């Protein structure tokens, strides 16, 4: 634990005061308390060990993100297969929309299904890597803003799954045209859910300095 630097206002944290704060409702309890007496949430000290959960969910999300991009998202059959059967992946769907001139919608899907998930993986990995290391106040604010952005924007990746569900339910015109969901829909939904859990398990209190820094061995063992 380092002494406050001149650029850091003297802030006493619950951890330094020998107390533990509840992340659910803000109530403060003596160190060693297990559950918050007010909201019932599990209370714990900010600790780099909690990053293991972040990495586990992160990896699960990444694993499911691969089939989500390789397998088809939508299976379209037009005129009983005479006019062609097509299987579109996420990226293929964006290209198709561009082809038909729907630039706005193509941009929405491209951002929600490709930019946001990849950005989320990068940001969470970065946050979990630098968590608990000393940071300037500016750096800590940047990290907190990044985490808030990931938490806020992460759910919106689910758009593509909903689009697939609506299309599959709606476009059941027998001989004329039918659309069925592909396996990528499930993989993508799981990937989004896992990255949401990863972002939620990240303890933002680790961003701020003055935390027990682990040894190099612990850090590599993540």
């Amino acid at each position, binding site marked *: 634990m380092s002494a406050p630097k001149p650029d850091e206002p003297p802030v006493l944290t619950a951890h330094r005061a020998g107390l533990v*704060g509840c992340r659910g409702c*803000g109530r403060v309890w003596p160190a060693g308390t297990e559950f918050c007496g*007010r909201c019932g949430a599990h209370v714990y000290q900010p600790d780099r060990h909690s990053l293991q959960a972040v990495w586990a969910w992160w990896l699960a999300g990444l694993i499911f993100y691969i089939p989500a991009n390789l397998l088809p998202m939508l299976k379209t059959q037009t005129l009983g297969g005479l006019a062609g059967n097509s299987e579109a992946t996420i990226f293929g769907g964006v290209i198709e929309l561009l082809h038909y001139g729907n630039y706005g919608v193509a941009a929405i899907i491209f951002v929600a299904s490709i930019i946001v998930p990849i950005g989320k993986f990068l940001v969470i990995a970065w946050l979990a890597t630098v968590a608990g290391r000393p940071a300037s106040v500016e750096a800590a604010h940047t990290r907190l803003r990044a985490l808030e952005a990931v938490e806020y924007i992460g759910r919106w990746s689910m758009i593509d799954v*909903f689009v697939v*569900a609506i299309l599959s339910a709606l476009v059941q*015109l027998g001989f004329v045209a039918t659309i069925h969901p592909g396996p990528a829909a499930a993989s993508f939904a799981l990937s989004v859910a896992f990255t949401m859990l990863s972002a939620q398990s990240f303890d933002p209190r680790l961003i701020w300095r003055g935390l027990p820094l682990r040894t190099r061995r612990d850090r590599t063992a993540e």
Partner: protein
Amino acid sequence: MIEAGQFDLETGAGLMACPRCDALHVEDELAEGETARCIRCGKVLGRPRAGAFTQIVALSVTSLVLMVAAIFFPFLEISRMGFGNATSLFGVALAFSHGWLMPLTVAMLGFIVGLPALRALLLVYVLWPMRGDGPPARHAGEAFRLSELLRPWSMAEIFVIGTSVALVKVAGLATVSLGPAFWAFCGLIVVGAASNVFTCSTTIWDTLEDRGAFTDGREVVADPQAVAQTRHRPAPDGRAG
């Protein structure tokens, strides 16, 4: 019971820790319209609003009514070359009901119907008894905690954006008409956003505590004289003000 401004560094009574950065603050009863922010990270710690509980209850009931409409009215309808198909909200969720995509159906129903409805019910359950000066319902604390946990997983507003994207995709393939359920869902989004603006979880926790849901003797009360001025009738004995 602790007077406003007093705190104990040994037990943590009378203190608040910012959930984002762990900075300690001395707990204080806020007046309506005031905003408390964390001194370090700037997170809003509390923002009580006048009549917020009544408004949240009203908005939650509204969203339940709209949800019933959204479930039972037709959602979308398409037609092409004499072939037509209509779907309801359940039809959309059941789109994944073939084979091994089945679990996704359950998740979809939860995201777009179950969780938003459950959250609205929980908020009504927690806040309805506390609109005036009444004591909280049994297990109101657990109910509110569940509602807060489910917040990121209720995705009704994302579903509406997804619908608009799907409409554009289908537009080239067939003629689409929007059913009443679609408009009910749009209304649901507006109501949900308004409810989120009014919801201040710190105020709700604090009120739950002050009204006697938790009797660990750590609740902070405002200056008794100020309480006497704002209250219409004196609090019964044995209950923290």
